[in-house]
C-alpha cells in the first residue's frame, strides 16, 4: 500500500477529481497548502509597500491506495492537473504500512478502498 501525496493548482482540483473517478479512485482527502516551487510567486503592494508573495496557494491531496492502484492514480492526477506550465505541481509516493477503517476495524487492502 502506498500513500500518495500530491500538490496541484487549486483550480485543477475538480479536473483531478473527475480523472480520479474515471480511474475508480473514489476516496481522497484534501487540504489547502502554500507552496514554494519553481513557480515564481508574484508581487503585491499594500499601501505602496511591496509584498513578495512566494508562497502560492496550492491544494494538497492525500490518497491511500493498494499497490496496483498506484499507477492509475498517479496517471489520473497527472491527466487532471497538467497544463504544461510551471506550477502544475508534484506527486510524492510514501510507503504505507497499514490502514484501518475506524468504523469496522478492517485493516489492510480491504480497509483502504
Amino acid at each position: 500500500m502506498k500513500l500518495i501525496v500530491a500538490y496541484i493548482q487549486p483550480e485543477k482540483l475538480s479536473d483531478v477529481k473527475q480523472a480520479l473517478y474515471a480511474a475508480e479512485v473514489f476516496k481522497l482527502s484534501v487540504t489547502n497548502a502554500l507552496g514554494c516551487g519553481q513557480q515564481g510567486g508574484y508581487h503585491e503592494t499594500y499601501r505602496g509597500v511591496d509584498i513578495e508573495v512566494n508562497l502560492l496557494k496550492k491544494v494538497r491531496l492525500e490518497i491511500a491506495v493498494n499497490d496496483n492502484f498506484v499507477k492509475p492514480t498517479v496517471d489520473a492526477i497527472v491527466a487532471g492537473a497538467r497544463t504544461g506550465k510551471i506550477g502544475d505541481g508534484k506527486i510524492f509516493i510514501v510507503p504505507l504500512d497499514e490502514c484501518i477503517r475506524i468504523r469496522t476495524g478492517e485493516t489492510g487492502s480491504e480497509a483502504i478502498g
Partner: protein
Amino acid sequence: MGMAVTVLVLLVQGAWGQDTQPASPAAIAEKAQAGVEATQTAINTVWTLLAAFLVFFMQAGFAMVETGFTRAKNAANIMMKNLMDFSFGSIAFFVVGYGLMFGASNGGFFGTDKFLLAHADVATGDGLWQMAFWLFQIVFAATAATIVSGSMAERTKFGAYIAYSIVISLVIYPISGHWIWNADGWLAKLGFHDFAGSTVVHSVGGWAALAGAAILGPRIGKYVKVNGKTRAKAIPGHSITLGALGVFILWFGWFGFNPGSTTAGMNLSIATIAVTTNLAAAAGAVAAMCTAWLHFGKPDTSMALNGALAGLVAITAPCAVVSPTAAVIIGLVAGVVVVLSVEVIDKILHIDDPVGAVSVHMVCGVLGTLMVGLFASPAYIAASGVACEPGLFYGGGLKQLSVQAAGIVAVGGWVLVTAGSMFLLLKKVNLLRVSREEELRGLDIGEHGMEGYNGFQIFVTE
C-alpha cells in the same frame, strides 16, 4: 462652532430682537408670517438633507450586499468599485450631469444650464435650497450607477468600470432623468409618474446591469455543458452576514429615498410614504422567502434578502399614491417575481448576474412603475399632492397604466442602447474583462495588488 452659535443668536435677534418702541400688531404679525416662512424653508431643507444623508448611506449597503454575495477573492475590488463610482459620479454629476437633468429643457430631452452648481447663489434663500436639492440628486444618481457593479462583479476590469460609472453619471442617467423629473421633460408632460425612481433610478441601473452582464459573459465555471445541455452552477457568496447587513442598511437608507423624495418636510405624506415603503419591503421578504421555500425546498437566505430589496424597488414609484394595503400587495408580488426572475435569468437566459441586480432593480423597477397604473388611489394622490391619474383598480382605466408602460419602454430602450454600445466598445478594444488567470486568482490581486482578507485561510478548491 462656538461662533456659529453666536451667529445664530444674532440672526434670530435680527429677526426677533426687542425693538426699543412697542411694535404695531401689524408689524408683529408680518414678522411672524416671515418667521413662519423661514421656518418652513428650514424644515424642508433639514428634511431633504437628512434624507440625502440616508440615501448616501445606501452606498455602504450596496457595497456590503455585492461583496457578501460574491467571493472573498474579489472583495477589495468590489469595495473599490463602490467607492469610486460614487466619487467619480459625484464629480461628473457636479460638472455636467446635474445640468443635463435639471437645467432648462431643450425640447423636453435634456437640460442646458445649471452646470457646476453655477445657479445656486448662496446669497439667496433659494440658492441655499438649490444646494440641498442638488445633494439629494447626486446621491440618487450614484445609486443608479452603483447597481451595475453587482451584476458585473468578479470579472470586469477596474478601468472599464470607472469609465462606465463616469458615463452613466455624466450622460445616461441625467438624460432619461430629465425626461421624467424635470418638470419640462417629455415624459413628465405625458403624465408619467415615478415618485422616487423605480424607473428613473432603479430601472436605469438595472437595464445597464443587464447589458453589462450579458455583454461581459458569465464567470468561469458558472455554466457547464453536461451532455450538450448548459447547466447553471452555484457560486456562493462569501459572507451572508455582510450581505444581510447591506440589506438592512439599504432598507434604512430607503427611508430617505422614498419619503425624502417629497423634498419637503412640510408635506406630511412623508409619513404615509414611510409606511408604504416599510410594508412593501416586509411583504417582499416574506413572499420571496415562501416562494424559495416552496420552490427549492429550503428558505434560501439570500433570496429572502433579495425579496426585501424587490419590495423596496417596487414601491419606489408608487409609494406616495397607494394605500398601505396596496403596498403589502405590491411587496408580495415583487417578492414572488424576484425569485422567478432570478431563476429565468440564470437557468434559461444564462446571464450571470452574481447578486441578482437585474431581477431586483430592473424587473422590480418595471413592476413598480406599472403598479402606479394599477393601484394609484385618488385619496393618496390628493394627500401627497402629486400629479397622477387614478390607477386601473381605482376607476382610472388604462390611462395612467399606458403612460407608465410608454415610459418604461422609452427608458429601457435608451439605456440598453447607450450602455450597451459602451460595453460593446469596451469589449471590442479588449478593456472590459480581466484575463482568465486573473479571474481565477481573484481581482483583488490582479487589479489592486492586495487581498481582501489577509490572513484568513480561504478554500481555493473551486
